[in-house]
């Protein structure tokens, strides 16, 4: 096992597009939740199903992990120290809302070994920030990043979003322009996807969500890739860009189809060949742990067929693509034989290309990734 994801399902504000497992912070049993989380880690790690030397990555996400107060943060860091094996080489990421991290909170994290902060910036346009339900302001971003740098954090990433309601290509270019002034190592650029059970979904159904549309979205994506390239950030995945050596190892775990723990309410893990999903509702999650049970809602043994499919549709998200040698070693089958027709068809359509023993998306393929990924589902 190489990686662990830890979910903090609390938010002080709910964003209009968010469909992750989360609840309003106010009045929630945060401390009790943290106790359950510690217990889940303990139970999982003492089962010793799998030898874990030390974790190469830990990722604390949410929800809003920065919604925790200082003592809660200390508690969280302590349990990770107590139960999860990691060292100073581990990529240890903490997801943060701009403006939420005080110098003291940053210090706690830094001392616990967190070495990467990922800020949910989304956009620098104040209008758009309000429209998508974010409460931070552009200036919070500058302050938070400065503070983090001053604390000693060197590996900083921000998330940006495009195809937001009412967003124009010019807006997005401006946000990108501002972003490049930050002197950070990593960017994620996600397109807005309207999911059920969100405010945006309801608005969309009423016809009140002015989405920029597929063509503008494509232009924004194109701009994103071009600008990143121009500024020396290498695209290593559909939505991720970094300075060389600063690729998110944690996200690569997913794309490389490797195993990881998922701790916390609603968290997903891939452990010993099983994809697992924890109970989402806090009470269910905590009750299971009270009964000394793992809080697992779904457990699915991934068949060989599914493994191979996932190897393809996850691996092809990476710029490097799927390594055919690696595939051969892992599945003892020749990739070119196995997907002969699909590869032929997709190459003809100029969506994939074979280079240096890898199958990769072409630039066109990056725009139409789902067309490619689907082909590998049988």
């Amino acid at each position, binding site marked *: 096992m190489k990686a662990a994801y830890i979910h903090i399902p609390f938010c002080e504000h709910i964003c209009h597009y968010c469909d992750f497992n989360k609840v309003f912070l106010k009045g929630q049993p945060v401390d009790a939740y943290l106790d359950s989380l510690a217990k889940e880690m303990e139970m999982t790690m003492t089962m010793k199903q799998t030898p874990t030397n030390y974790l190469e990555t830990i990722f604390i996400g949410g929800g809003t992990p920065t919604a925790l107060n200082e003592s809660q943060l200390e508690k969280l860091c302590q349990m990770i120290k107590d139960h999860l094996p990691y060292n100073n080489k581990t990529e240890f990421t903490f997801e943060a809302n701009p403006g939420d991290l005080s110098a003291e909170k940053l210090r706690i994290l830094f001392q616990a070994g967190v070495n990467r902060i990922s800020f949910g910036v989304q956009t620098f346009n104040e209008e758009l920030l309000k429209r998508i339900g974010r409460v931070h302001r552009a200036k919070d971003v500058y302050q938070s990043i400065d503070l983090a740098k001053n604390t000693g954090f060197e590996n900083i990433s921000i998330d940006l979003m495009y195809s937001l309601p009412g967003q124009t290509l010019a807006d997005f270019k401006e946000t990108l322009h501002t972003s490049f002034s930050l002197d950070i190592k990593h960017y994620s650029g996600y397109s807005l996807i309207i999911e059920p059970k969100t405010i945006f979904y309801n608005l969309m159904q009423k016809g009140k969500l002015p989405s920029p549309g597929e063509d503008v*979205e494509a232009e924004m994506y194109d701009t994103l890739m071009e600008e990143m390239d121009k500024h020396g950030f290498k695209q290593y995945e*559909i939505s991720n860009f970094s300075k060389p050596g600063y690729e998110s190892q944690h996200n690569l775990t997913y794309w490389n189809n490797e195993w990881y723990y998922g701790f916390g309410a609603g968290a997903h893990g891939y452990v010993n060949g099983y994809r697992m999903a924890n109970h989402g509702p806090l009470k269910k999650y905590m009750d299971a742990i009270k009964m000394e049970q793992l809080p697992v809602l779904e457990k699915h043994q991934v068949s060989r067929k599914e493994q191979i499919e996932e190897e393809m549709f996850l691996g092809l998200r990476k710029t490097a693509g799927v390594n055919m040698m690696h595939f051969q070693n892992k599945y003892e089958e020749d990739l070119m034989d196995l997907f002969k027709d699909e590869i032929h068809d997709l190459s003809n359509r100029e969506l994939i290309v074979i280079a240096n023993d890898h199958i990769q998306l072409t630039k066109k393929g990056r*725009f139409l990734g*789902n067309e490619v990924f689907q082909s590998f*589902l049988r």
Partner: protein
Amino acid sequence: MNSEERLTRQEKIRNFSIIAHIDHGKSTLADRILEKTNALASREMKAQLLDSMDLERERGITIKLNSVQLKYKAKDGETYIFHLIDTPGHVDFTYEVSRSLAACEGAILVVDAAQGIEAQTLANVYLALDNDLEILPIINKIDLPSADPERVRNEIEEVIGLDASEAVLASAKAGIGIEEILEQVVEKVPAPTGDPDAPLKALIFDSLFDAYRGVVAYIRVVDGTVKAGDKIKMMATGKEFEVVEVGVFSPKAQVQDELTVGDVGFLTASIKNVGDTRVGDTITSAKNGATEALPGYRKLNPMVYCGLYPIDSAKFNDLREALEKLELNDSALQFEPETSQALGFGFRCGFLGLLHMEIIQERIEREFKIDLITTAPSVIYDVILTDGSRLKVDNPSNMPEPQKIDRVEEPYVKATMMAPNDYVGAIMELCQAKRGIFIDMQYMDETRVNITYEIPLSEIVYDFFDQLKSNTKGYASFDYELIGYKPSRLVKMDILLNAEKVDALSFIVHKDFSYERGKIIVDKLKGLIPRQQFEVPIQAAIGQKIVARSTIKSMGKNVLAKCYGGDISRKRKLLEKQKEGKKRMKQVGSVEVPQEAFMAVLKMDDNGPKK
């Protein structure tokens, strides 16, 4: 039973149907009558019991007929045998209605106390009068706030000319008036008059196929008796069989020793083919049988044709089997294999009407799990070629080249519409737009009008009924009958996708409407066909001439650029869903076309210009 017992029993038999416009409460009344005669313990009651197919209950219509034998103890102390014969309520099945009415001596005419007489009410009443039935009008839904029974009573007297002074005021839903209705059935519906000693004459008014028993014929015995072991003959087909069992539905099938004059029940005789028991045919004894068949038999001819193609071409044989199975139960369904350049192998199928077509389609998709592409429905055009020969065309893509055609004739119907007079303008406008010829307009009372037009069937087959409903806020009712062929200035419109002609999208259109329709259809297709990897031009053409054009832009972006955390199963589901959606599309040349696109011509007018 001896002859005398049979005659005494015959005196106590009452055979009747319930006729009504759709939604006027026919099925609910049937349920109440079943309850009242204790045909069922109430726990067995499923809402609307006589409609036994799932589809029937969902759509609130009766497709296959049912008959049921009931025992009713009347106020005069005698016990009567009732046979209640259900009738389909839709105009597509007029012939079946007329046959089931032929099995009765009486009919309960249900009229909605709020809505009054509708077009179908009239059509059904005329059918009942044709069959010399005693008609018992009842005014239903009197518990509705908008009920106006006295107005409806007058309407029945004035429009239909029935004596409605004794019409029962009822609410089938609330159980009001049910007993009075049953008493009137005893009093007013005549007992059957046949001769139990005469040669057997039994009318087949419906049939269905049972995997174990073969064809089950629903019959009404008019003369004579029939029992297991009898040798019988179908008078229309001349086929002979030996009766295996006879019985009645009460409402469960119950085998009886014999069926005699007035009985309505079923007969099985190891018959393998529904075509051998045609609705309307007469059953008689193989030896010394009747010389003259009961009147009214006719072979049903489909009015509407369309192509049915499996999306997955490997399912062609499954589709054939499905159609063969459905045909067992539905002698009106016709099909023969055809090939389309765009869609591959499929069948050209003939139906009694649009509803019949939709039902068959839905049953194939639901019961046989075959995803279908249905081409737009077509009527049968009579094409007179320049060399004087005639050609029947039921598939637009088979229409000959214009220069070879002398003229084209198309079927017309007489359409009867009833509505409050506020909507006269809307109805006439619609009928004009549908190339209708005005025939007549009559006031039924101060506020309601009966309008008659002659309209090409092809226009009815498109969305006429939907539009009529929407243009009259649902107030207009509608009925039609075929009246024959008239010449029309018709042309074939071809649709080209990516410069390739798609035969399955061709349709026939009146010359004067062709440019407009061409424009509507290409715009419509643009909305229905998803963006592809490359730009796809859509063109509408008459012969070599392009009359309209539109373009589907190439796909911009389709890739999940979202952070899903480690939730890989969700990503997989999304991809699987997209892939599933593609499976429901047909690859036409290099373009993926969804099912709905092939029906686009059908729903052409809903965003079309209103004149």
